[in-house]
């Protein structure tokens, strides 16, 4: 019985809760049990909040008894440890925030709580979301539920692995250059990175402010849409969140894609792309065409510049964003008596290698004499990348592409080669730079049985069309119903 409860989708669980077949406490306990059984191997969670989760579940049951039917009432979820949660340690996977317990809760998480969701714990991440495997976590590496020797992707690898392993019904992650989409693909689940400005960033510990966006994970597109609808919307605390109404994303899932214009960017099918991925993605495109969509080849000519542009803009912003971690007000302080030595020791010992690498990269790119050649030029090319998409979306409604060049790689395989690691986000960076929508749905498995993700890209604030396309594909396939062999 218990295993059944962790194998549900959010909508299925909600129906059972509504019908009174199960209680939120039962549902939550089942997930906590599974976490305690599986997480010692998977290591998706940095913090497990058993007591708080059961309290919240009991409250949810009480609310339901009083007639409340909030959309996520009693639904157990996992939250990436980059998102601020009042009273619960929030570390960003970094030792520099070891023991930090925030005094407030971020907007997106608060919206989940208001909708009745139950937080099971905080999930592992590459330190400050800088990475594609969780190997950069200051604490430990998360394992891919499909093959424990492999990475779950990153940086939101903890959240993706938790959902894939049935340790949470859904999860929040953050995506700066692919950190939601890449782990969703590698873990065989569905996810969306909404448009920049769709979800408030208040309470998201900033990595790259002009790119960061909170995204949602689920076993189905339906769940992903439900979670997104809950957290989306303007927030007066985030001046970059758009004052636009939130459409009914669930209502957009009509299953009908007749006449939908699909673009296939030739620049995304290049050397280095794992053959099984190309086959699976091309098959998915044919499947959509069979469903009535019109497919055409398009060009996004500046795609090749996305990687260098991203690795100038993101580290530049990060170099300033991470300056506040100085041990003066919170986090461990490695006191050396004097001010400068204390700064150096605190930051030197608190940050890991990859974070330091990016801080140095960004500091360099912003320095006098280099700013124009690096940061400013990168911003100009970013505009060209954005224009590529604008032109493409004059002809097509969505763009389909692979999410990653390879399926999940072995732990340690790329850990010493940052450039190889950076390349695993090569297909997701452009949509981040353009601030547009990118969703992922499972679209097959490679010869080793590892999941492959299809990326569905759409124009800014057209989440409904992206979700409709992804959902229609999912309705026509059963990839998402497979479970890892645990």
């Amino acid at each position, binding site marked *: 019985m218990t295993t059944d409860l962790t194998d549900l989708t959010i909508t299925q669980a909600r129906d059972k809760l509504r019908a009174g077949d199960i209680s939120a406490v039962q549902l939550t306990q089942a997930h906590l049990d599974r976490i305690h059984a599986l997480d010692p191997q998977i290591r998706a969670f940095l913090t497990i909040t058993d007591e708080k989760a059961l309290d919240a579940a009991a409250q949810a049951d009480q609310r339901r008894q009083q007639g409340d039917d909030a959309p996520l009432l009693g639904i157990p979820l996992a939250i990436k440890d980059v*998102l*601020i949660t009042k009273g619960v340690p*929030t570390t*960003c996977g970094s030792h520099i*925030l070891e023991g*930090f317990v*925030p*005094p*407030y809760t*971020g907007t997106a998480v608060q919206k989940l709580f208001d909708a009745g969701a139950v937080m099971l714990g905080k999930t592992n991440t590459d330190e400050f979301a800088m990475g594609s495997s969780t190997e950069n976590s200051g604490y430990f590496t998360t394992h891919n539920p499909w093959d424990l020797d492999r990475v779950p992707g990153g940086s939101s690898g903890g959240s993706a692995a938790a959902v894939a392993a049935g340790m949470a019904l859904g999860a929040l992650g953050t995506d700066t250059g692919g950190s939601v989409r890449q782990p969703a693909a590698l873990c065989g689940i569905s996810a969306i990175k909404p448009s920049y400005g769709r979800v408030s*960033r*208040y*309470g*998201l*510990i*900033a990595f*790259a*402010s*002009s790119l960061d966006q909170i995204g949602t994970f689920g076993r189905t597109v339906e769940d992903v849409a439900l979670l997104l609808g809950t957290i989306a919307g303007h927030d*007066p*605390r*985030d*001046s*970059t969140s758009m004052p636009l109404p939130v459409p009914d994303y669930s209502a957009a899932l009509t299953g009908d894609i007749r006449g939908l214009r699909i673009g296939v960017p030739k620049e995304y099918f290049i050397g280095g792309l794992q053959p099984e991925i190309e086959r699976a993605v091309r098959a998915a495109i044919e499947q959509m065409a069979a469903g009535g969509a019109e497919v055409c080849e398009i060009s996004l000519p500046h795609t090749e510049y996305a990687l260098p542009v991203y690795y100038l803009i993101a580290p*530049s*912003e990060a*170099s*300033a964003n*991470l*300056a*506040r*971690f*100085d041990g*003066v*007000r*919170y986090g461990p302080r490695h006191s050396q008596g004097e*001010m400068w030595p204390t*700064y150096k020791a605190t930051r030197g010992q608190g940050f890991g290698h990859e974070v330091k690498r990016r801080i140095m990269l960004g*500091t360099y790119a*912003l*320095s*006098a004499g280099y*700013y124009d050649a690096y*940061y400013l030029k990168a911003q100009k090319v970013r505009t060209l990348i954005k224009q590529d998409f604008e032109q493409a979306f004059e002809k097509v409604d969505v763009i389909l592409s692979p999410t990653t060049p390879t399926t999940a790689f072995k732990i340690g395989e790329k850990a010493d080669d940052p450039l190889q690691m950076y390349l695993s986000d090569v297909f997701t960076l452009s949509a981040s730079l353009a601030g547009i929508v990118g969703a992922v749905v499972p679209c097959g498995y490679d010869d080793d049985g590892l999941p492959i993700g299809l990326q569905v890209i759409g124009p800014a604030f057209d989440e409904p069309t992206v979700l409709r396309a992804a959902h229609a594909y999912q309705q026509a396939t059963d990839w998402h119903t497979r479970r890892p062999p645990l």
Partner: protein
Amino acid sequence: MTAYEAVIGMEVHAELQTASKMFCSCAVVDSTSAAPNQHVCPVCLGMPGVLPVINQQAVEFGLRVGLALNCEIPEFSQFARKSYFYPDLPKGYQISQYEFPLAVRGWLEIDLPDGSTKRIGIRRAHLEEDTGKLTHVDGHSLVDLNRAGVPLLEIVTEADIHSAEEAEAYARKLRAILRYLEVNSGDMSKGVLRMEPNISVRPVGASELRTRTEVKNLNSIRVVARASAYEIERQIKVYESGGTVQQATLGWDENRQSVVVQRLKESAEDYRYFPEPDLPIVIIPRDQIEAIRAALPELPDAKRDRFITAFGLSHYDAAVLVAEQAVAYYFEAAVQAGGDPKQIANYIIGDVFRQMNNESRDREEIGAIKLTPKALADLVTLVQKGTINHGVAKKLMDTLYTDGGDPARLVEERGLAQVSDESVLAAAVIAVLDAQPGEVARYLAGEDKVVKFLMGLVMKAMRGKGDAQMVQRLLTEQLEARRTN
């Protein structure tokens, strides 16, 4: 010997005394008296995950100043991050404006001691957030972040200031304008207004710009003048003795009345400015700018000119009255209450300021003295009508200043009304002359000045209330009458 001229640019940081801070809803408080770290929140503490939100009132305050300083307001302005590490800077960067400031290319007309005026160019005025404050105790540093995030307007002049006198005049005028605009209390001792002259000197006629120093921690306008004068002299002496001036940040040592080196600048600091990605560009619609311009209060120069033309005041008197907003308002209230403007101006600049000086009260506190504008107006009118004489009025002034009250009632209660009854005054004059035969004789011998002495005796006999003009006439008449005897 070479003649030198100073080249000074002034950098001013004015806190905008809005209800809340620049990017959060914490209150702006007096950080010299508030209990430390009580007016803080996750945003101004630089907690992880927080985001700034622009305080629209601060933008409006900044625009008021920009417009009052005759600046152009560009189509848009943009916030930028200025990065450096210091414990009073919670985020490790200050949100400021860099490439696109709020206001540019303005000017301010200053009044010089010789009565001339001069325009000082304003290069730019931009918005930013204040830092916290450090206190050093027993080898430790304590951080108070009440002030962190308070809105600041940085106002930068062109290098148009060429003497300590001009620096002082600029400081006075700018401070007055900020107070008129009700955006800043002008209290330099509390650090809400900070003025930092950048000083270099060069031979008169040269166009080169030599190495400059920056003088900080000047806690009053007088100190701005004194420190500027000191630094100008110091640099001239350095060049005269064949030395070179080193680029440095200097401070003013009040005890030694001299500048001290705080920090030598070996290379330009790199703040790695870049546009603040957490905030949108600030675009202020033209009609809103014009609405702010239309709502600006009458500023000191306009007020001074109006006082001259409408009330016939001298340029000097008018300038003195408008230099402090509170004084100008006090004067206007008294005129409104029906007193003669010139007489009111005389009383304020003379008696009222003297009384306030005696008490070491700043002129800006004039609104709080017990002598109300209405009472001053009434007093002036009593003199004008001849109800009391000037001498009584001056004594009454002292009473009203110390205790307040209604002049007309005091005159009645104390029987201070002027005596203009000729028979009464003549009797008093005759009595004095009869008692002073020696003085009378000296007068008759040609010593005119004894009249003044005799006058004093008569007024004393009249307990100060005699109509002075009438007493003088009667005294002369009676003295002349005795010549024929």
